[in-house]
């Protein structure tokens, strides 16, 4: 194992290569491009023996890895934001076909308005697709989860795609010291993929055959049971990883200073680092606060979540996504997790950091001063902007017409082109 100072892109690229994917297909999109550039480079210089398939869209990239995975080889892809949304139709198929595709989602906001910065609306939107979603806090964890992801996905109790989610810019763009395991270590941790079924011209099969109403429900139930089983497999993968690589990485949830905590701050991904810093400061002030970081958003680890915050009476969920017209998706799951429990904690839904808005430690501390005024509570919503159509007292009007003096030649041209022909009545 060698601890090196690497950009996240390189670290993820090397981790993917160590897993020996035989087919890689992806389409470049900010802020994911760096990962697939690294992989393309490795294939070009021969250090990665894989087929790198250039495609014209993310829909095609997902289709290529679907087909390749169906033939029984290990595959890798990566995308973000609009690219993930374009992949969605295929990703539902990958899950339904029970193909252990592994991909990295570099989390980015979705359009409109166009915004290339970080939030988690893209991956969270795929909540119901049958894809396992694991969220990394650091580049190191992004590397470790990627290696674990293949072990989880290819387990015959699971056989489902896994998406490792990393906050765009905050993680893959950043340089951090990262332990990149050796090929021997990864080979020993990750046995060769043994498919249950595979496409083979010598023994043809149909995959994803038509299921009429008398069987479709059962097929979906089987998917759900695969998700259920993955809860245990994720924990096994993390335990084996700890045993072989010597560090804690992955698992279902991470509890930080939660042993005696009255208040639990809950989040996913890199924001946990900010929350931990806030908690450290609040602890010096004598406040019993802790952090519960959800690593596995799908499957949702209800039991582990309850266990992690057994003593908390107040739960503040801070997440970078919103289910428009409802609340934060993670908050919804948290509320469901505590339904029916005797003396459940109060659970607040805070939506923060959308589209790359910074979430400073001060914001977190201020959040804890009082109960959230609304649910969902949009954290740090600016009050200096007039939000048209939001304040009901104001009527929606069109933008004021911009008038400016055009240069003489331009205005003559405009007159010639757009004025009514002579003699026309209007």
């Amino acid at each position, binding site marked *: 194992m060698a601890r090196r100072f690497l950009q996240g892109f390189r670290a993820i690229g090397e981790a993917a290569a160590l897993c020996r994917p035989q087919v890689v297909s992806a389409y470049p999109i900010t802020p994911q491009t760096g990962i697939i550039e690294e992989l393309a480079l490795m294939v070009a210089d021969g250090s990665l023996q894989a087929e790198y398939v250039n495609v014209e869209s993310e829909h095609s990239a997902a289709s290529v890895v679907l087909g390749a995975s169906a033939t029984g080889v290990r595959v890798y892809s990566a995308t973000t934001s609009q690219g993930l949304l374009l992949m969605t139709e295929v990703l539902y198929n990958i899950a339904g076909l029970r193909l252990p595709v592994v991909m990295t989602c570099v989390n980015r906001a979705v359009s409109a308005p166009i915004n290339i910065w970080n939030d988690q609306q893209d991956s969270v939107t795929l909540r119901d697709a049958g894809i396992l979603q694991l969220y990394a806090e650091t580049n190191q964890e992004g590397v470790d989860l990627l290696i674990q992801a293949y072990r989880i996905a290819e387990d015959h109790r699971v056989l489902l795609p896994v998406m490792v989610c990393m906050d765009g810019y905050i993680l893959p763009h950043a340089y951090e010291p990262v332990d990149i395991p050796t090929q021997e270590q990864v080979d020993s941790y990750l046995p060769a993929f043994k498919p*249950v079924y595979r496409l083979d011209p010598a023994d043809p099969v149909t995959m994803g055959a038509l299921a009429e109403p008398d069987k479709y429900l059962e097929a979906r139930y089987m998917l759900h049971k695969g998700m259920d089983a993955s809860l245990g497999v994720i924990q096994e993968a993390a335990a084996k990883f700890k045993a072989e690589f010597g560090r804690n990485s992955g698992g279902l949830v991470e509890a930080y200073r939660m042993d005696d905590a009255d208040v639990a701050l809950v989040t996913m991904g890199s924001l946990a680092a900010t929350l931990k810093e806030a908690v450290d400061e609040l602890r010096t002030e004598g406040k019993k606060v802790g952090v519960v970081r959800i690593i596995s958003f799908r499957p949702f680890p209800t039991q582990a979540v309850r266990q992690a915050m057994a003593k908390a009476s107040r739960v503040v969920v801070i997440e970078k996504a919103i289910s428009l017209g409802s609340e934060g998706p993670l908050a919804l799951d948290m509320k469901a997790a505590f339904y029916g429990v005797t003396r459940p904690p109060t659970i607040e839904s805070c939506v923060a950091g959308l589209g790359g808005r910074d979430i400073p430690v001060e914001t977190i501390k201020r959040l804890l001063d009082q109960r959230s005024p609304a649910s969902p509570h949009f954290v740090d919503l600016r009050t200096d902007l007039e939000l048209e159509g939001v304040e009901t007292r104001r009527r929606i009007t069109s933008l004021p017409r911009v008038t400016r003096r055009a240069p003489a030649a331009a205005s003559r041209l405009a007159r010639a082109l757009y004025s009514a022909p002579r003699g026309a009545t209007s």
Partner: protein
Amino acid sequence: MKITVGLVARAGTSWANKTGSWRTGIVPKFLRQKCNACDLCALACPDGCIYGEAAKDYHADMEFCKGCGICAKVCPVKDIVMEPEVR
């Protein structure tokens, strides 16, 4: 009955699943007068259910034919006609 992971089935299940009952109510009639075995009807059949070797032995498999009429439409010598099915 077993439902496999990923709903994987052995190839060739369409042989077991006879779909001729979906037919529209018209069937092709192979007149076998001017047929020159050009094979165009068999190639154009969307169900792939027209068979024939030599001129005048072309026929459609009624366990699969949907009565779409494409064979009659493409026949260059007008040797196939569509007619109401008598069941």
